[in-house]
């Protein structure tokens, strides 16, 4: 027991030094936590996908549409429960900096396919009834201070002109990882307008979303749909929703890799700082260790003494960092809301923070502990003075 008392006493002997090291450790853990959160956020949209949904798009690439006439054909494939469709609209609100996802969908079937969008029943009815109505996520509405009934104008990039919409409904996500910044409106509004202005672009959809009854049949259904349109002017590519989302996510691969590397660099930085503190501390106390050895302390006890002190410092730092992570994540979220609609600190990140504290604590004390425990008593005592 006395050894624990000594560990604590030692840890707080140099209050300033310990304080600074704890602070440095806390900052490192904070940075690591933020970076991890960026990475987990990046992948979080995968968790929001459902195994019961498939996405059909043009095989050439996303920018090519499919004819609406495929709708009936897909609907009659066995195992298909429900089909919805839509287009990426790509509208700009006031200017490009206000980026958010906006698309036109067939609303009734779409909302049935996405029960994770929670909408008050009366608003939902209003939205379905008004052809120019739109549905927006809670966070998007808060960001621009919109109210139900407000008219919002988007400037089309793919479909030229100014488009007026009326906010009819606001959705919340059923779980935390649902993106609450989307802007969804009625596909009929888009299509009817296009019929007048640009008939060549009418009756074309960007994607079909399919609800299937049995996720185990996904592969068969996928093959059947793609085979059906093989050698047609618009060949299809059908994937599970997860694979579809994965395709988007892997686009940012390189950047995610850089962030991963950097998050490990931070651990090396903090290791250098803590190892330095411990090296200095043990060098100053080398005489004391000699005295302890004279009193009969084994090299194991001395190692425990030094390692324990390091762990006290790193763990305190980790706790400080973890506490700071939450407000920092909130600030980060506000600054980068266009890039990260969802930004939540995962429990696994906190666990990882604590693991780092342990690893850094042990690794940083290895060399100093070896030095201190292998010192010859006479030599150690002579160093005093």
């Amino acid at each position, binding site marked *: 027991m006395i050894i624990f008392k000594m560990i604590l006493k030692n840890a707080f002997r140099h209050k300033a030094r310990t304080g600074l*090291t704890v602070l440095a450790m806390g*900052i490192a853990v904070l940075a690591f936590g*933020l970076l991890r959160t960026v990475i987990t956020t990046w992948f979080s949209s995968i968790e929001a996908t459902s195994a019961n949904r498939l996405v059909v798009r043009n095989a050439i690439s996303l920018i090519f549409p499919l004819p609406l006439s495929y709708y009936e054909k897909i609907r009659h494939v066995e195992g298909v429960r429900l089909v919805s469709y839509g287009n990426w609209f790509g509208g700009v609100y006031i200017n490009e900096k206000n980026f958010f996802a906006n698309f036109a969908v067939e609303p009734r079937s779409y909302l049935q396919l996405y029960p994770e969008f929670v909408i008050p029943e009366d608003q939902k009815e209003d939205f379905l009834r008004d052809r120019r109505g739109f549905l927006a996520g809670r966070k998007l509405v808060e960001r621009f201070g919109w109210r139900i009934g407000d008219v919002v104008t988007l400037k089309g*990039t*793919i479909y030229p002109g100014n488009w007026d919409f009326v906010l009819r409904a606001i959705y919340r996500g059923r779980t935390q990882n649902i993106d609450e910044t989307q802007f969804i409106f009625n596909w009929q509004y888009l299509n009817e307008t296009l019929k007048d202005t640009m008939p060549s672009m009418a009756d074309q959809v960007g994607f079909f979303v399919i609800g299937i009854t049995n996720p185990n049949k996904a592969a068969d259904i996928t093959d059947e749909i793609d085979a059906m349109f093989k050698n047609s*002017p618009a060949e299809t590519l059908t994937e599970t929703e997860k694979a579809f989302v994965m395709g988007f996510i892997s*686009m940012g691969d390189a*950047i995610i890799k850089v962030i991963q590397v950097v998050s490990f660099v931070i651990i090396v*930085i903090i290791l250098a700082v803590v190892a330095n503190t411990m090296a200095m501390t043990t060098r100053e106390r080398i005489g004391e260790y000699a005295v302890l050895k004279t009193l009969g302390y084994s090299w194991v006890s001395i190692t425990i003494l030094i390692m324990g002190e390091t762990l006290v410092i790193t763990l305190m730092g980790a706790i400080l960092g973890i506490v700071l992570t939450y407000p920092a994540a909130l600030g980060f979220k506000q600054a980068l809301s266009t890039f990260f609609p969802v930004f939540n600190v995962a429990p696994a990140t906190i666990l990882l923070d604590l693991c780092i504290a342990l690893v850094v604590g042990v690794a940083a004390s290895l060399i100093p502990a070896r030095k201190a425990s292998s010192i010859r008593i006479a030599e150690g005592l002579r160093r005093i003075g």
Partner: protein
Amino acid sequence: MVIPLSYSFRSLWTRRLTTFLTAMGMALVVFVFADVLMLAAGLQKTLVQTGSYDNVVCLRKGSTSEVDSAIEKDKAAVIETLPGIATDDKGEQLLAKEVVILITLPKQQGGSSNVTVRGIGRKSLDLRHQARLVQGRMPNFGVPEMVVGSSLVKRFEGLAVGSTLSGNLKNWRVVGIMEAGNTAFSSEIWADADQVMQAFRRPVYSVVIFKLTDADLFDRVRGLIENDPRLTLQAKPEIKFYLEQSEMMAKFLKILGITLTVIFSLGAILGAMITMYAAVANRTREIGTLRALGFQRRAILMSFLIESILLGFIGGLIGLFFAAFMQLVTISTVNFQTFSELAFKFTLTPAIIIESMSFALAMGLAGGILPAFRASRMNIVDAIRAG
């Protein structure tokens, strides 16, 4: 009287391990700092070099990228009649009507990504002085042939000269590889515009690009284009157009980079502070002796500050040394604004070297200032007596 510089040097040398660990911490921060700046500079360079200052890009009004723009053939014909368009020595207009689409191609490391296919006109190559052929030949007009950008060849499947593609580009042959330096064109496939329009059933052009006889004419030409009610088009200088394409990504890199370096540098400053406090504490008697020898408080302060700035200097040098190697790395990612692949390099510029070194010295200074004050305020008698 000033304490000689060698005193600071030797003090650092005596505590080699500590000096090394502290400098390493700073070096890593400088490394990250420099890398972020290099990445942003590389992105910027790639997109700025892609544009030429006297080229004009015409897009549909409201469109933000080439892919979502559309220009009907009759509108393109109107642009050809505008004044101020440069001609080559044969008297032909330096103007190209191009169609730009995205196709999905399989990557060599697995997965797939979007690649830009540019249907070019006869003058497209003359308008892009950066692009040149490195292997094979340019595609002939009227046949399904294409030339592939050099950064695509390494990353995507089956793009070597002589190979043919599948899908909508069935029976299309790769006949050459072009190199366009650090520009977006190195990540594109070029083929005859009419062939591309036919293969993908696209009846309209995406952009019209032309060279001006004089860059000063731009405002006049833009007026003619944007005020013509038949056209509903917009005109932009090519340089500005490509810069806008990278705005979002540049902002992302900047915010991420600044947040990281601020947090990292706090850690490294604390590291330097710990080291310098310990240096002062260990040398209490030495400081007392120096004072007794007649060195002023200010001299002591300077000496310790120099020591910690030196630490920062060493850290900066090591960090920059390793950052320089990052220039060999090419980052390839999808630009979310255009949705197509873009490759760019870490680029070390003199400005970044200066910024990184100043940053390193500032970290050293910030870490050393409090310990140096403590050293300079020591009482001579107490200091000498200290054990």
